[in-house]
């Protein structure tokens, strides 16, 4: 019985490892500079989607933002539609999750 349990646990661990590795392998980090055409905050204000128009290709890319500082900047309009953004994001499971979301302009 103990042997069977050990085998089951081993297999489960291997599956978890393989799945985790596969997910990491699927994640692709991309970067872009683009102008915000739309910002939409979720009802609980814990995430938002921002649509950026890639200044190179003209293509619209939807970015999922969940870091507190950027969400705060959306809420008090330090970042608004029309602002130009330098963004790094991770493409995984059909979603583009923001890893960096900063206005290009300084002073």
């Amino acid at each position: 019985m103990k042997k069977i349990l050990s085998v089951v646990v081993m297999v489960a661990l291997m599956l978890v490892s393989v799945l985790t590795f596969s997910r990491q392998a699927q994640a692709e980090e991309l970067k872009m500079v683009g102008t915000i055409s739309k910002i939409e905050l979720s009802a609980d204000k814990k995430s938002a989607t921002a649509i950026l128009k890639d200044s190179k290709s003209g293509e619209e890319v939807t970015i999922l933002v969940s870091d507190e500082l950027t969400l705060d900047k959306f809420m008090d309009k330090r970042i608004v539609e029309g602002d130009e953004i330098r963004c790094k994001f991770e493409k995984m499971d059909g979603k583009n999750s923001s890893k960096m979301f900063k206005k290009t302009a300084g002073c």
Partner: protein
Amino acid sequence: MSGKITVIMLGCALLAATVQAKEHPGKEQILKEGYQGPKTCETCHPGKAREFLGTVHWKHASKVDHVDNIDPNEEYGMKNRIYTMCNGSDIVNNLKEVPPNALGKTKFTGCNTCHPGDHSSDVGSTGPQAEQAIDCLICHSFKYDFSKRKAVKSEDGKVVMTQDRSTEAAANIGRPTIKNCMACHEAAGGGAMIKRGFSMAQKDEVHVTKGIICVDCHQVKNHRFPTGRDPNNWANDGIYMTCVGECHSVTPHKDADYNRHIAKIACQTCHIPKTGGAFSKDFTKWEKQSNGFYEPSTLKREVNETAPVYAWYNLTVSNTPHFIGPKGSRTDGKSKIYPFKIFQGKAYFNKKDGKLLSMDFASPIATGDTLAGVASAARILGIKEYEPVPGWQTIYFGSNHQVAPKNKALSCANCHALNGVLNFKELGYSPKEVEKLTNPELYFEKLLKLQQENE
């Protein structure tokens, strides 16, 4: 952390929460009568607008008495200083619309974008018009709509900064929050976290984690802000601050060995082990961006990604065309070892007198033509004789923010192991002293005991 400090921090957190929650007196009157700018504030705070015009936040300059090679009777600061993190100043890079780039796009830019006036009343302006141009709410409102603060052209073609003077913003006021401060202070030098490379997010700053905000340490008196002693931050309101005071005593550690270090080691050295942001820029070579504008080539890291450099500092500053940094030595009796964010910038120097030249960014932003920027700056500053040659300047920025939690502060072995962060030889110690300072005998028993306690 001692019980006393914990109690003080808890007190600060509670006070901050109370202050935030408590409504500012006069809210009903503001809601009833609306907000008419500083004159509304002056109903209860007479004289404060004029007072503010005399501060560094408005003048972007002050007399400076701790820096080499400057005129003690002149005022220096963002208004007129030139160095290679910015290579411009409020005067040269006065807020303006840049010429169209190759894609026909233009934009507003200028060093004085963050000046809390309306640009018609600008850096250092005085008089009743300037008093009424102050954007009190950008620092004092919790509900400031930052989208309302932007550069636009007025009907007569002048570039002005608009402000949020809404009743809602005015009715929600108090002491400046971290957000109020960082709205300007995080974006200096070319973008978020570029210049000083520190973050005031809870995860990055232990004081913020405990509910302490900027103005709890920078305790403002009559709109004058105490500052630390960053070698590259010259303008000051005449008051300075240190860690030692109502929160931290001169013997802040339980461990007497740590307390002994205080005579020669600044608090920041152990408690701010990392820095970040831009570490090098080249103003002679601008890179074209995908939006058609150009930016100076910049090497940068995220916050907490860079190791500081350490040097003796007696709070006076060496200032030459190719170096701005701490003065001091092991033997002068005044210096302590401090951490610095080191930066190296390339820009044009005047071959005729060796001085660093300034650059007006309007042309380089639009076309990448850096020499056109130098020529424009020379015209603005009245420099007729110049021959631009590229060269490098090294700058030491003070590393005074982003204090790490206690368990991430430097401990004995971080400095005294052979691969420690302090280069004792460069700090002036003899080979024999270095041998003693890097002998495990100094710390072995103490660290072993700590290790056993934590296991």
